[in-house]
């Protein structure tokens, strides 16, 4: 395959960036999108140019590191991560635009790499349970109803890649935050911190400068793990419940 790539190049956080056009040849349709970028970088290094910086780690769709916007879609045209997107979904001769996640809370570090530590701070505000560590407890000691376990697991699938924020016209982190809150709030292990978790995590989400939700639905369409849009309604319900409860006590 012969392709024309238009890639966002930005030397560092403070420098202005621009789209730079590269021609690339000999791309196999079995390559992943990241392998195609590796091929481009090998050519750039041989020519003595600066390679394109992009985040990647596991390359098997479970770590959430490899987020880029491809032709306006977070992670590209397929509902998966960039590392699991294969070049067979493109045609010979295509022009492909590659851009970093765009959000005020995700500043560009270099080229396609953004700083997603705002997500870590949301998790730090309550995305955990307080429990003594040590040997794993007996699995049947705390019964969990099957529908609750399914609901928790559906949300535990979130890999924190940030595609929801990148796709949202408001740069909102509601889908990410809802996945983390719903995952823990439905389980008995998460019950002691049920109210403080949702109030603190939503407050941190607001402080980090993410936008509000206008129910555009772009986040759920972009999510490689299929976190559904009603998760946001479930979080809103938890937040309203916690607000009522905390104001009473």
């Amino acid at each position: 395959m012969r392709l024309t790539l238009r890639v966002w190049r930005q030397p560092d956080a403070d420098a202005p960036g621009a789209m730079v056009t590269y021609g690339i040849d000999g791309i196999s349709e079995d390559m992943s999108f990241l392998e195609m970028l590796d091929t481009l970088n090998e050519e750039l290094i041989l020519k003595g140019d600066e390679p394109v910086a992009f985040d990647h780690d596991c390359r098997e769709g479970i770590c959430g590191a490899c987020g880029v916007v491809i032709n306006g879609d977070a992670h590209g045209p397929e509902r998966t991560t960039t590392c699991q997107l294969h070049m067979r979904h493109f045609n010979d001769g295509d022009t492909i635009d590659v851009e970093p996640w765009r959000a005020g809370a995700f500043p560009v570090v270099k080229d396609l790499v953004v700083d997603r530590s705002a997500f870590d701070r949301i998790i730090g505000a309550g995305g955990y349970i307080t429990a003594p560590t040590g040997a794993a407890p007996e699995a049947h000691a705390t019964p969990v109803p099957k529908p609750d376990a399914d609901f928790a697991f559906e949300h535990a699938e979130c890999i924190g890649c940030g595609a929801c924020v990148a796709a949202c016209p408001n740069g909102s982190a509601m889908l990410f935050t809802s996945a983390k809150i719903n995952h823990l709030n439905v389980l008995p292990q998460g019950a002691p911190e049920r109210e403080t978790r949702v109030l603190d995590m939503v407050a941190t989400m607001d402080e980090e400068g993410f936008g509000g939700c206008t129910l555009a639905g772009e986040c759920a369409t972009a999510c490689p793990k299929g976190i559904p849009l009603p998760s946001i309604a479930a979080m809103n319900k938890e937040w309203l419940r916690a607000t009522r409860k905390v104001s009473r006590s």
Partner: protein
Amino acid sequence: MTRTLWGSTIGKKTIMAVSGLIMLGYLVVHMLGNLKIFFGPPEFNGYAHWLRTMGEPFLHYEWALWIVRVVLVVAVVLHAVCAYQLSRRDLAARPSKYVHKRARAGYATRTMRWGGIILALFIVWHVLDLTTGTVHSGGFQAGHPYQNVVDTFSTWYGNVIYLVAMLALGLHVQHGFWSAAQTLGAGNATRERVLKGTANLLALALTAGFIAVPVAVMTGVVS
């Protein structure tokens, strides 16, 4: 609790949802009342008079009407202030745009902000036209709403303003009702179809019901 509501994006959305639902409830009653115009001047004017005597003798003349007006003004102001503050925040959260552009979200969703501005301007014109009569075409007669309505819809601009505003209203309600349900936590996977269906039905019924009046004046059914 008030501080939490006002200080959070979800809290402000909650205020928008509740004030929006109050306005929506009023609009359904308003639209149904408007349809009385098809039963002739005595019934329509009589209905308008009853709105002023509603609640008597417990309430004084026009008190019920003023209570409704105060509630509506509070709802409109809260809705608009929250929308403005949240919009400012949303735009700031996406400071640099994508080079590769594509339409994000549906038409009704994308037009919420401009639609809201159109509706706010419409409300000002509508009150000045048919409540106070300040910008009314021809002689405004208090207590004769039938004739006033016919006068307004006998002008081309009266019809244009009204039709545009009612189309904006339909789009606003279609996305707004469903969004309010999500914000108040009523949405889940099984209720999705019912909520979307109700939103579509409300939007269609309101737009069609309101538009029926100017169309009737234009076609001579009401004169």
